[in-house]
């Protein structure tokens, strides 16, 4: 490629190419070139303009129609978000939301992901938003004259501001500002308007409009303002500590991974811990595995362990499997299996004192987290006082929970499958090939039906699994097959030279896979993996068919059956579609940015 002509060195020390100047084209020329270049093009332009007009008018007629009942989704917004989460505990939902926003703000700062937007571009966008708003007033059928005037006047403000700004700014102005600031300002405007406009009165209790006052749970304007402040504060905190805190990205990544577990088991469920049981059983088991296991791993990861270490690891593995044949607490079996896995891989982490310390420290952290979460999951919830495993929420919350847990568990399983399918060991290869091809050949809905109906029958006596975990298990098995294919594509793109170089260095197979092959393969597979994550989010709506109360189920079956809004199905469905659309669209845009940043597909 050509040498960069005028490199700019940013604060982070990275070299960026200067943005090429956009040539300025006068509007008349632009219209001639882009709309009326040939007679055929002119016809197309006229036809498509007519099409757009008719479609927009139809759409607006639908949205503003006199018989539309937008108060159905507005009043039941809380249903859509969390189903019937109890009022007095609603602060937990806001805490969850705040946690996610804080993490998002910190991550935006840590990854320096805020793109910039040019002044001219901004002015153009403001003007086009103004035009769009004014057009709503002009085009929409069935609207009062005063309503039309309102829209036109509101639209005129940004339109005028944008056009004036474009006139003032030089045609080749290259100044820009953070897009994050612009987005926050827009959202802040919307949220702050809640304080003045009286639409806060649609409070969401049993279809009856309630005055927007009282507890935090009923009001949205105060919590939403706090949420706004949280994300702004998190962003600026993240920006301040970024230069001083080298591990920020790794720590944030870890918290993101743990968040679904912490938020669902501890925050939303609020388990009622029994301190006696905790002290007599749970804490001793955890301590024993953390300290005893840590000591074993410390010895095994020593350079002198050699053959004895491997034999010891094998014995632990056998013991761990044997634990499933004897009556024992499930948590002990899980811990033992984890210990066996760690012991087998301990040779990979052998080396300096610091490396061994990190290994043992990681083990202790993992044991603490796993034991804590398993205990919390098995403790009854105080929020509803329902038995173990029964879930307490629905709507968008459930959709997000299913999506995030599926992604988290499908990832390691899928990567394992991909490695097995590309490995040189025939039985592994055939097994994973058969699995992947079978799963990919059957529709997701049959998998869901199978796991909803059949899983309870497949489990041994005394073991129960609620519907949501059963569905998540099925979804994990399903997605991992697709994920494996995406990762396999990445694995196959790695040149032979990399393998040969790794072998020449004397790396073991595990080291080669973990340090050479996988990082490169996963980097290449980022675009398809994000696409799959979007698909997982979208297709989680299929749980409707097995009767889980996800976002779509509430929009389609619950709200149209609430008193006062009987039969109002299209309005909540529109809102649900918009939520799905906003989620998928923003994810795909973000992934395109990451792709550009990583320079994928440009070599």
């Amino acid at each position: 490629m050509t040498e960069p002509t005028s490199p700019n060195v940013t604060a982070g020390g990275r070299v960026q190419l200067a943005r090429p100047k956009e040539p300025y084209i006068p509007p008349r020329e632009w219209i001639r070139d882009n709309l009326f270049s040939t007679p055929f093009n002119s016809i197309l332009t006229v036809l498509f303009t007519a099409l757009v007009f008719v479609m927009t008018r139809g759409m607006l007629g639908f949205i503003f129609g006199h018989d539309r009942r937008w108060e159905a989704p507005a009043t039941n917004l809380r249903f859509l978000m969390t189903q019937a989460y109890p009022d007095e505990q609603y602060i937990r939902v806001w805490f969850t939301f705040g946690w996610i926003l804080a993490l998002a703000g910190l991550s935006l700062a840590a990854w320096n992901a805020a793109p910039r937007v040019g002044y001219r571009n901004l002015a153009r966008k403001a003007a086009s938003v103004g035009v769009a708003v004014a057009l709503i007033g002009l085009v929409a059928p069935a609207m009062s004259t005063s309503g039309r005037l309102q829209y036109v006047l509101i639209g005129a403000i940004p339109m005028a501001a944008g056009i004036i700004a474009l006139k003032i700014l030089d045609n080749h102005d290259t100044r820009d500002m953070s897009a994050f600031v612009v987005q926050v300002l827009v959202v802040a405007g919307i949220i702050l308007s809640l304080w003045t406009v009286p639409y806060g009165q649609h409070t969401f209790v049993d279809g009856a409009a309630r005055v927007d006052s009282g507890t935090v749970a009923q009001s949205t304007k105060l919590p939403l303002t706090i949420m706004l402040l949280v994300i702004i504060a998190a962003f600026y905190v993240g920006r301040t500590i970024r230069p001083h805190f080298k591990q920020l990205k790794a720590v944030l990544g870890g918290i993101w991974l743990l968040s679904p577990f912490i938020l669902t088991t501890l925050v939303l469920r609020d388990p009622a811990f029994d301190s006696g049981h905790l002290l007599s059983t749970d804490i001793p088991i955890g301590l024993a595995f953390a300290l005893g296991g840590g000591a074993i791993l410390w010895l095994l990861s020593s350079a002198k362990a050699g053959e004895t270490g491997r034999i010891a690891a094998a014995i632990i593995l056998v013991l761990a499997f044997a634990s499933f044949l004897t009556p024992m607490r499930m948590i002990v079996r899980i811990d033992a299996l984890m210990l066996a896995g760690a012991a087998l891989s301990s040779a990979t982490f052998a080396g300096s004192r610091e490396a061994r310390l990190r290994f043992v420290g990681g083990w202790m952290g993992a044991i603490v987290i796993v034991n804590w979460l398993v205990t919390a999951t098995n403790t009854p919830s105080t929020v509803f006082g329902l038995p173990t495993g029964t879930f307490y929420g629905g709507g968008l919350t459930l959709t997000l929970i299913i999506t995030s847990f599926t992604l988290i568990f499908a990832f390691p399983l899928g990567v394992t499958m991909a490695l097995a399918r590309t490995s040189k060991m025939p039985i592994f290869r055939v097994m994973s090939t058969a699995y992947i091809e079978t799963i990919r050949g059957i529709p997701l809905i049959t998998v869901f039906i199978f796991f909803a109906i059949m899983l309870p029958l497949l489990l041994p006596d005394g073991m129960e699994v609620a519907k949501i975990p059963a569905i998540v298990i099925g979804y994990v098995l399903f997605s991992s097959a697709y994920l494996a294919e995406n990762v396999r594509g990445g694995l196959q793109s790695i040149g032979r030279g990399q393998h040969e170089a790794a072998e020449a260095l004397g790396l073991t197979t595990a080291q080669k896979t973990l340090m050479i092959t996988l990082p490169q393969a996963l980097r290449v597979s980022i675009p398809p993996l994000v696409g799959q994550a979007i698909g997982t989010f979208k297709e989680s709506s299929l749980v409707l068919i097995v009767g889980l109360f996800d976002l779509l189920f509430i929009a389609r079956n619950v709200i149209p059956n609430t008193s006062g809004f009987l039969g109002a199905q299209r309005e909540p469905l529109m809102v649900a579609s918009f939520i799905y659309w906003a989620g998928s669209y923003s994810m795909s845009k973000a992934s395109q940015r990451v792709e550009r940043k990583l320079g994928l597909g440009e070599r």
Partner: protein
Amino acid sequence: MTASQTEHPATTRPPLWRDAVVVKWVAQVFTLVVVVGVLIFLVTQAKTSLNDNGIRTGFDFIKTNPGFQLAEGIDTSPATGGRALYVGMVNMFRITFVGIIFATMLGVLVGLGRLSGNWMVEKVSTVFVETIRNVPLLVQIIFYDAVITQLAPVEFGVGPISGWFMVTQKGVSMPRIFAADGFYQWAVVVLVGAVVARFVYRHEVDRRDETGQDTKPGFKAMGTIVAFGLLGLLIHPLFGFLGPIFGGIARVIGAIPPGAVQLALIALAATAVVIWIRRFWASFDGPSGRAKLTDDDWFRIVFAGIGGLLVAAVVVLWPGLSAWIVHSTHDFFRFLETKFEFGNWSRPLDGMRPGVIKPDRFTSFSPNGLTMSRAFAAVFLGVVLYTASFIAEIIRGGILAVPKGQLEAADAVGLTKGQKLRHIVLPQAFRVILPPMGNQYLNLAKNTTLAIAVGYSDLVQVGQTLYNQSGRTIEVMAIWMLFYLSVSLGLSSIVNFWNVRLKLVER
């Protein structure tokens, strides 16, 4: 570790538990045993659970009366459970085939629209793609269903076609086009015209290459077909002589004993499998010897063998099949015989015109015209729009993947716009487009299962009703799996076949 390696010479075998070969095989066999063990455990567990719950198992429900009616399909009150499932399968194929055709057409148009130089066209296509593909298909299907359900009856069409299209709560109706008297005879004339047109085209192309004049071969070929079409209006009764010929063929076929057909079919299946495997095998021979077969390839070979065996088994175990083949072929030729009879012709100008039956202004399903039920329309619309938005992206990507140098070279050689498209862009783009396109068709076929949400009687919906009635959950699920696996494998082998044919021969 490195220390121990230098101490031992490389030739000594490591101890058994350090031997890579041994360890790898032990790990594999161990995993296999664990997986098989878990599966066996689950199956026995399922059996005991089912026994405990008093649920009987077995495939007898296929032969007994299912005791329910289907909303739509070739047979709305099936006599047996198997027949009900068959109707569900046919319904699934109905929507899949029509969906694939329409989704491809729409997707190609939108994909080209996104590459258009016209700003308006490009924006409309982009908004279409970005909106449709980011909303889950199930949400769309349910939404379309809700919209149609709550719709006041709408009639479309202006002027002479006023009232030809109707959307009501019961479904969508449109005119049905049917063949008028003498149409078949006229079609034969046009067919002959098409063959002649091909010769004309060849000839004119050769002439252009020799003389360098623009002889307009495409234009002349089209003219030939039109000329034959017009001629056919006058002379089509002449082709009535085909009627007795078809009648003769029908009588000959009717005399064939089904047993012979059975034998022929088995032989055909065996030959097909052998030829397929040999071809497949040979396709791996390259200049540098035989390429290594991957597991996928082995999988396919084994599957082809099993498929052949299954076909043979079906033919042997189900003698009705060959009888059915004989019958239907016989009936087909009988049908042609009646259509080609000498008496079956019309006045010159009516011969080619297809008849149109307007749908009734209906409150119930109109017997005339074509109707789509509400559920069919919702699923069809959802599946077509959703798949089209993905196909559009594939088409766009494929065309953008053609290197710019190729187009510049084509310009330099002096190819016209059409030639550039036909000889340079499309062949290269097609290679990139085909594999993901096949995937989209597969997705479409699998996505038709969402029909269950709006009550369209596809295989999953019928199966669910069936197991709710009979309690045979495992059996129904096994049938689902078998069916969808065979559909997937069948579709993917068709795509693979084209893929192999189009593949660049790499050196």
